[in-house]
């Protein structure tokens, strides 16, 4: 990134562009270089040829609208910060913009106070970008966040979200008291949450009524967890011969997948599981299927088609597809670098399907 921050401003109103170019370029303390584009195609071609820290985009543009530009920008330039600055007061567009991954959504300021707030916010965004190491907890691992909370003797509940799964870690006066995931609590849930590679977190007020189930010190707990994760990772590198036990012997690729499938196969009401790698070789692991090919084709085709549809409609990430039939129910979702498809008997209730699928996805994401 260049030393002087750079902003690209996109709007179809030339007067607005002139005004904001001057305001941002001359009145922000970081004195950014501001380029402007009066159409979506122009903005994309500028982004292609130069590096920027921030794109400020209007939504209501002729020909290529703001949502289209933001979709392409998010995919092609994942590190670019995106801000919407628009006159559209419609909650749906705010939702869709955030679903596409924008950092902030602003209505065009109408008062001096609003202009001031907008300018402060833009300065904060670009300075966070340029001051490496001060981006805060966003780029930290979970272990760092837990250490931070425990060292400062705080009491809080860390709500951690990984895809559609939510976990909670209860911290009381700098000690980890309990952890919770769908279907599990205590140290097991804590280890499972810490094995997640990505996600987001929210720090909620403490829950003093929570019963303590974890009695190890936080240092010991983190050490044990790190050890367990290391052991799992080294076991993963050693291929094992499939055991051939259970319904339709499972040609699993590694011991981690084998143990996951074994765990999932014990879950009530699960008929089959198939995980399909999204990389070129499309490695697949499955349990409970004699012939995985048709389900594998259904999973790939359906998720690919609806991903494309989602991009066309600008409605954000495809989270899950659920299908209900007279003989089967099925749930399909993208999960990390895989697509996962789980089959259930038709008699299973929707709540059971939802909870079981959440649980399976959380195990897979770990």
């Amino acid at each position, binding site marked *: 990134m260049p030393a002087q921050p750079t902003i690209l401003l996109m709007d179809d109103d030339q007067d607005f562009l002139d005004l904001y170019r001057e305001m941002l370029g001359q009145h922000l303390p970081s004195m950014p270089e501001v380029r402007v584009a009066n159409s979506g195609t122009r903005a994309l071609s500028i982004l292609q040829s130069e590096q920027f820290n921030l794109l400020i985009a209007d*939504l*209501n*543009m*002729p*020909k290529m*609208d*703001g*949502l289209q530009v933001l979709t392409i920008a998010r995919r092609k330039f994942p590190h670019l910060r995106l801000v919407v600055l628009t006159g*559209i007061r*419609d*909650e*749906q*567009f*705010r*939702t*869709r913009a*955030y*679903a596409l991954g924008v950092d902030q959504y602003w209505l065009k300021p109408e008062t001096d106070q609003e202009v001031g707030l907008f300018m402060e916010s833009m300065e904060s965004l670009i300075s966070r970008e340029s001051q490496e190491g001060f981006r805060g*907890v*966003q780029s930290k691992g979970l272990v760092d966040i837990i250490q931070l909370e425990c060292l400062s003797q705080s009491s809080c509940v860390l*709500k951690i*979200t990984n895809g*559609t799964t*939510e976990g909670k870690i209860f911290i009381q006066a700098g000690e980890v008291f309990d952890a919770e995931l769908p279907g599990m609590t205590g140290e097991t849930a804590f280890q499972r949450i810490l094995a997640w590679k990505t996600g*987001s*977190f*929210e*720090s*909620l*007020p403490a829950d003093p009524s929570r019963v303590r189930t974890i009695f190890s010190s936080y240092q010991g707990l983190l050490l044990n967890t790190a050890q367990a994760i290391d052991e799992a990772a080294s076991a993963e590198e050693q291929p094992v011969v499939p055991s051939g036990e259970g319904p339709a012997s499972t040609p699993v690729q590694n011991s981690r997948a084998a143990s996951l499938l074994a765990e999932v196969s014990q879950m009530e009401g699960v008929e089959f599981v198939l995980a399909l790698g999204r990389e070129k070789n499309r490695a697949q692991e499955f349990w409970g299927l004699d012939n995985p090919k*048709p*389900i594998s*084709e*259904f999973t790939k*085709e*359906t998720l690919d*088609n*609806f991903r*494309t*549809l*989602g991009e*066309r*409609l*600008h*409605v*954000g*990430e*495809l*989270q*899950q*597809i*659920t*299908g*209900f*039939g*007279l*003989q*089967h129910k*099925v749930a399909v979702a993208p999960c990390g670098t895989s697509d996962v498809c789980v*089959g259930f008997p038709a008699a299973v209730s929707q709540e059971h399907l939802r909870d079981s699928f959440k649980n399976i996805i959380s195990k897979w994401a770990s």
Partner: protein
Amino acid sequence: MGFLSRLFKSAEPGLVHLPSGSFTVDKEGAVITSTLPQSFPSGHRDAISQQIMAAFRSAKRAHMPLNEIVIQYSALKLLARELGEGAIIFLMPQSLNQQSSVSIKKSP
């Protein structure tokens, strides 16, 4: 003709508001009835129906016939129910507070 077409020139494509509503399609994905506003582009509606009918067909090919499919995006939910040889498709835009939390927030 030139004068009329200048008067009634179709509006430039702009931002598309996702409506709540439903429409029915035949087995080819052609629209039979619709409660969606005319401002919703027919191209979008056709793309939705084609993908949904393709998903029903694909499930059938996988020996797992389905009569209902729910597709959940961050900002939209689609629900499709098979009706004989066609389907009824519901569009349900989602608002921010209906979604699960995905952002990083720090409560006081």
